[in-house]
């Protein structure tokens, strides 16, 4: 039987961490793009689009991410395509994070005071101009801390993709455990690596929030 040193375990886990990071980035960027689309549907004037965007968010926030992963994995397969785990994982995570980001950003747009809309309308601005010059710049600033905060949820969400067989940090943890029979050490290390990824983001979000509050108070 081969002996595994602590370094062997750490090295393999860190190699797998690359996939966690990559999947998180893909989900965040892809999710952000879909969320932008959803956001404009939701705050636009077309009733049908508002309806679709609203229920999209309700649906994805009201069902477990794990179920969405399973449905993506087996559902994409129904179209006769052979679905690799990474594709189903990326697809489901993008749709899932889009729902949450759209809802966060909607809150930010709506928190821009009503007077701002009225003021810009009284200056003869159209809807697009109001959005472009008045609402979006203010909403963007408010949106940064909760968006960074949500990226933590995305990193943690990628752990679930191990269940449909995508080999990232969690799956590597399971594989290494099965080889070394040291679950306590391995899962402890896995947790520490996740912590090292997420904690700076959490702190960053908190600090940004505090800075933003100070900026608001000084107005």
């Amino acid at each position: 039987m081969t002996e595994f040193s602590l370094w062997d375990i750490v090295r393999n886990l860190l190699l797998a961490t690359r996939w966690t990071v990559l999947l998180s980035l893909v989900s965040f960027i892809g999710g952000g793009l879909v969320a932008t689309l959803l956001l404009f549907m939701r705050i636009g004037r077309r009733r049908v689009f508002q309806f679709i965007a609203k229920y999209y968010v309700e649906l994805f926030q009201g069902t477990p991410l794990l179920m969405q992963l399973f449905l993506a994995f087996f559902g994409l397969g129904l179209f006769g395509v052979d679905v690799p785990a990474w594709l189903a994982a990326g697809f489901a995570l993008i749709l899932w994070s889009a729902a949450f980001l759209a809802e966060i950003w909607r809150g930010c747009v709506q928190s821009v005071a009503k007077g701002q809309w009225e003021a810009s309308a009284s200056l003869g601005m159209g809807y697009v101009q109001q959005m472009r010059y008045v609402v979006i710049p203010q909403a963007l600033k408010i949106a940064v801390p909760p968006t960074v905060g949500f990226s933590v949820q995305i990193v943690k969400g990628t752990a679930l993709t191990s269940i449909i067989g995508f080999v990232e940090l969690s799956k590597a943890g399971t594989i290494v455990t099965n080889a070394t029979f040291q679950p306590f050490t391995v899962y402890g290390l896995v947790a520490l690596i996740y912590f090292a990824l997420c904690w700076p983001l959490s702190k960053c979000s908190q600090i940004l929030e505090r800075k933003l509050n100070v900026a608001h108070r000084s107005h």
Partner: protein
Amino acid sequence: MKYVFDYSWLAQYWPVFVKGLLITIQLIAIGAVVGIALGIACAWVRSLGPKWLRPPVTAYVELIRNTPFLIQLFFIFFGLPSLGVQMSELQAANLAMIINLGAYSCEIIRAGIQATPRGQFEAGASLAMSPFETFRHVVLVPSLERIWPALTSQVIIVMLGSSVVSQIAAEDLTFAANFIQSRTFRAFEAYFISTAIYLVLAIALRQILVLTGKLIFPRRVRQ
């Protein structure tokens, strides 16, 4: 798309879903009550409790909030036995959910406590209330009232997250779906139905918590 959907297995297998649903409900019921209690205790420590207790509680909250639930579950179920702590699947699932919700609700409740005006503490003291009575009647109840909507959302998130406990073979709703798909090879249909059940459960849970909030905080000004 040539796939033909087939739900005929449902006639035979629906009791499996019911059994799984009951386990999921049991998990979230215990998890919510004990988890929020733990959250209240931790929030008290972090905002008003003894100074020496604060660093460990902060560490606990930060550690749980920044690691995936799946890993917490694996650590408890697979990792702890090497320290001699052995648990059944359900006990491990319950413990993981309590620990998880405890950390999240701690942060939510702490925000509520910190929003309590200073004068309220002084008012409590001037009515000859003990610090505990002040906390219980003057600080805690209005704080919970303030953050009840956020707490409601968090409980629902934890309920949805509980689908992961199927991975340590706790026989919840997701486990039922896994079991059925392995027997019938109707994976998409099985997961579709369990997803629908989760959605209904999430909506129902929200209604229950909103109603509970109205019962616990009857003074709440209706907006």
